[in-house]
């Protein structure tokens, strides 16, 4: 067991800075925004250091109480890469916010945003099943408020729906945790994972169902994703970008961690303890989400809603990839998660710039090429990456996904056929927008001037997408070792946290 307690700063710094932002806010509103940028720069650099200098995997141990007795953070390869992604996306959005957050309570917005990012990082790094709940609540509460932010009334409606569904989800999750605790008397993920087979199968099944149902809310899986379209549409664009680029990463991570590490039964393909194979459940949910999301997005005329449904569908795709249960499947899932996070966040940010100059209907995209070539090209890059077309990151993850699912074979062949069909649908609506961008002359020929602070994140995302597209090794290696963490829970996770434990 390797410890590196210094890494507690990853969770601590953003939360600390978040609560001290009102103090800076007294000095200047601008300062509050810059504090966000600085904090997230630190987060990004620190996590990059952990990634590149290969500090991971390690534990953060509070007060010398070794797990399972104390609370710990576990930062393995999966957590590292996801934290890098989250802090990068967060940093970019915070740079974007320098431009976009200009009305209303800017200071509290910065506070909430930082809290959300910090909560998400905590969610990913914690090694305690109850702390997961706490961090879920931190991100949850900050995101309700974030979603309600902005001048529009529909933001309130969206946030309220999010709040209601999300509360149901947290409650279910808490019940699930409770059931497990009554059985095993511990909350440490590693210990539960090692001793999961000692539980009563019936109760375990029920707990598993409750946990999956609760976490599916954040992971945007049908039928627990009713909030997605309204909340994404209602929120201002940087918030939508945050929700899809950061929030959903955390949501999916926890779902997968619980199902694959805690409940997982290792084999050729991971399945779960209990009477009902939760992996199958997730596969069904994921596929249903893909189909429903893509088909709903097909007929949208509001581009933001379209992106929201597409987000939902992509999360379904990710969940479906994890549910394959092989290392390749987990690899594809992680890869797809990263690609989606980057691309979708970029699309929402671009939309934010466009919306500030006009409407958000699909027709309003007409002639974007003539108004702003920069936005047109970057939008196209994002869309093509989501479609899994080559030269862009999405190609590799989709390729890996199809590979994994055909290696699993069986009914996954059928699932894959459905998913590929849904991808054709997806291609249609994205290419339709791309077509509007390039073919039509704009109704008003006013040029869109993109200022420097929104341009930086958009350009950075676009460059990253192309970089991953040309050199998939950037993400490929770390994703593959992260996949190991999920598919072999003992050597990948449990023994790294509690080296002495014996698996049952």
């Amino acid at each position, binding site marked *: 067991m390797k410890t590196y307690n210094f890494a507690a700063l990853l969770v601590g710094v953003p939360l600390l800075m978040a609560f001290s932002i009102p103090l800076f806010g007294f000095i200047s509103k601008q300062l509050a925004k810059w504090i966000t940028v600085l904090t997230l720069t630190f987060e990004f650099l620190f996590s990059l250091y952990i990634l590149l200098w290969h500090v991971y995997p390690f534990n953060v141990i509070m007060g010398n109480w070794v797990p399972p007795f104390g609370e710990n953070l576990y930062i393995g390869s999966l957590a590292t890469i996801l934290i890098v992604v989250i802090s990068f996306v967060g940093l970019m959005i915070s740079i974007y916010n320098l431009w976009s957050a200009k009305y209303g309570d800017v200071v509290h917005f910065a506070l909430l945003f930082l809290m959300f990012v910090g909560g998400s990082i905590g969610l990913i790094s914690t090694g305690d099943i109850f702390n997961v709940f706490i961090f879920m609540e931190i991100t949850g509460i900050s995101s309700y408020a974030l979603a309600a932010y902005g001048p529009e009334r529909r933001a309130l*409606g969206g946030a*309220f*729906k999010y709040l*209601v*569904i999300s509360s*149901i*989800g947290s409650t*279910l999750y808490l019940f699930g945790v409770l059931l497990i605790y009554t059985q095993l008397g511990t909350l440490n993920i590693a210990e539960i994972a090692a001793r999961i087979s000692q539980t009563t*199968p019936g109760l375990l099944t*029920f707990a598993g*169902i409750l946990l*999956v*149902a609760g976490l599916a809310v954040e992971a945007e899986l*049908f*039928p*627990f994703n*009713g909030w*997605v*379209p*309204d909340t994404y549409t209602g929120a201002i664009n940087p918030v939508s970008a945050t929700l899809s680029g950061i929030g959903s990463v955390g949501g999916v991570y926890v779902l997968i961690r619980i199902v694959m590490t805690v409940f997982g039964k290792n084999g050729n393909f991971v399945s779960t303890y209990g*009477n*009902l194979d939760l992996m199958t*459940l997730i596969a069904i949910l994921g596929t249903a989400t893909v*189909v429903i999301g893509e*088909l*709903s*997005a*097909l*007929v949208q005329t509001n581009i933001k809603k379209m992106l929201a449904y597409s987000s939902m569908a992509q999360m379904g795709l990710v969940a479906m990839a994890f549910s394959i249960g092989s*290392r*390749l499947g987990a*690899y594809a899932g992680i890869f797809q998660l990263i690609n989606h996070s980057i691309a979708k966040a970029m699309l929402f940010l671009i939309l934010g710039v466009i919306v500030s100059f006009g409407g958000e209907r699909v027709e309003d995209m007409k002639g974007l090429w003539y108004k702003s070539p920069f936005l047109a090209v970057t939008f*196209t890059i994002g869309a093509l990456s989501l*479609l899994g*077309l*080559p030269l862009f990151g999405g190609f*590799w993850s989709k*390729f*890996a996904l*199809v*590979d994994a699912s*055909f*290696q699993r*074979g069986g009914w996954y062949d059928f699932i*894959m056929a459905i998913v*590929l069909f849904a*991808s*054709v649908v997806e291609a*249609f609506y994205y*290419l*339709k927008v791309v077509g*509007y961008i*390039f*073919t*039509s002359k704009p109704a008003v020929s006013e040029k869109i001037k993109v200022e420097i602070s929104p341009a930086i994140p958009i350009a950075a995302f676009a460059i990253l997408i192309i970089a991953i597209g040309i050199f*998939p*090794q950037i993400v*490929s*290696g770390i994703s*593959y070792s992260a996949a190991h963490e999920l598919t072999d829970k003992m050597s990948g996770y449990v023994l790294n946290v509690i080296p002495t434990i014996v698996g049952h």
Partner: protein
Amino acid sequence: MSSLLALLLVPVTGSIVAAIIQRYRLAERLVSFSTFVVTLLFLIDIRVGDAFTWSLGFLGKNIEMGLQITPLSIFMLYMTIAFGVLLTFFDLTERSKMKSFLLLLTLAASNWIFMATDFLSFFFAWELMGWASILAIFGGRRTAESRHGALYYAMMSIGGSYSMLIGIFLLSNLTGSFSIQQNVSYLVSIMTVHPWWVLGIVSMFFVAFMVKSGIFPFHTWVPYTYGESPDGFVPYLSSVMSKYGIYGFLIFLPLTLSLRNVPGVLGLPWPNYTLVWFGSITAVVGSVLAFMQDDVKKLFAYSSFSNLGFILAAIALFTPIGLTAGLFHAFNHLLFNGAIFITVVAVISKVGITRMSEMGGLWQKMPLTFLTFFVGIASAAGIPPFAGFGSKWMIFQAMISHGLIFATVLLFFASIASFLYLMRAFHAIFLGQLSHKYDNVKEISAIGKITEVFLIGALIFFGIFPGFILDPINSIVGSFGLKPLPTSGYEYINGFFSSVNMVSIFIVVIVAFIFGFLLFAVSAKHKKVPQEDNYTAGQIPKDWNLTPEMYQFSYDFYEPMDKEIAPFLKIKIDGFFKGFGDSVEYLGSSIKEIFTGNVQIYTYLAIGGLVIFVIAGWIVW
């Protein structure tokens, strides 16, 4: 650095440069042209057998990727790049909205497709070519229509490539490798044990190839897309991009060699026989639909895939003569289709419309374009001594030698029908009465003229000396393990039933022409009259306000045939795809109703989902 890599990097670099300077039209065109030229120069250095490999850390392993030059790939590379040089040269002065950087990206992808040794890079390049061409089509003359055309193409193309993706993985899971060669030889080895598996896997690939080449029943996108894509891009689409499918077919067709001893139809294995039928039906469908068209680009779109049908029918036989004929026709199709489309583009750029019934008499204004078009359609109709005769003639021989009576008659019918639509286009565009609104139309620029002269020269040269193409084709045929046809000099085409000395035909025709002109010169003098001076059954044109447009018969040229063709038109494959799309959209709009915006419904959904899970868990319990 390997010059194979240069074939990929040069176009990509050119593409980036062109994208950056695309505001400056002429500079962009120059970059595009010079990139093609440089790529061609690199190609000259490349020989069969050159290879380059690297490995990619992906999917948790190091995947070997490679480029390799086979006789087929070098043939294809020369065809596409040389044609691209010509096209971009022609395009220097044209003002179509084609984006050069997309064309160059397509070039990189196409080079890669022809050189790839593994399915991963093949698929990568295939998809790259796909999206680059989709985006390129967006720049058409009419915005909404070109968007529809591109989306139609995109749907078919992406559907096809997903089908290919499934095929790739079904295959690579069996072999554990992406290498094309290993996979194909594995398929050969299980051919006799599991013929249906092989058939299933290969047909997944064939869907993609059929879509790209516009083979029946996936031909429906072709007219829409060609008809609406930017004028400068259509020649590339129809001459070059349709050949990718042919290349794909040739990856898998060698499989059928191992079926030669298994009883099939008329000595042909079943898969070959079926493909021959697909090819023949495509040829007929394309030809028949073509002569009902009034839009010139659409007409030649139909013509284009009709010719692809000929090519497919020939290569599907996979006999020495069939393969030779198919590849030869692929080359000839590139040339004459290029000539036709380039002249059509030239005409459209001058008159500004695509409806043929509103053109007419343009031979008076654009004589060189007219002659190029004439040579182009003469080649397309397979008239000696122009290119196009040899290949068509060999295709017929290849078909006849197998006794495929119905398919052969269909192909022959398609060939005659092609004569019909070519004549109709020829008449409607260039002949007949010249409308006064075209009084100011000028011949195209000097660069265009050079291109046209070059095309005429090429069509005649390769018509008279087919050996220059047949030689490389013979080495391709040899590389597939078939016995190449005998060669006896550059001027000979050796078929199955007979051989033809093109030079002697050419000389006879020339001598006969000299005689004809002599006769023309010695017989009595003529005097030139204006086009109004015409037989009008005794009426005085002015009394009837007769205009040249009214005196031009070209609308609905084959109206009497409508009745005979009507049964054909009742088969609406197009309608099937459209209906399918509509029902998907309908499904989408129904499903979207789940998300009503009412939080109570969402709550019920979530609780309902939970209850269902619990019940499911209970049952399993």
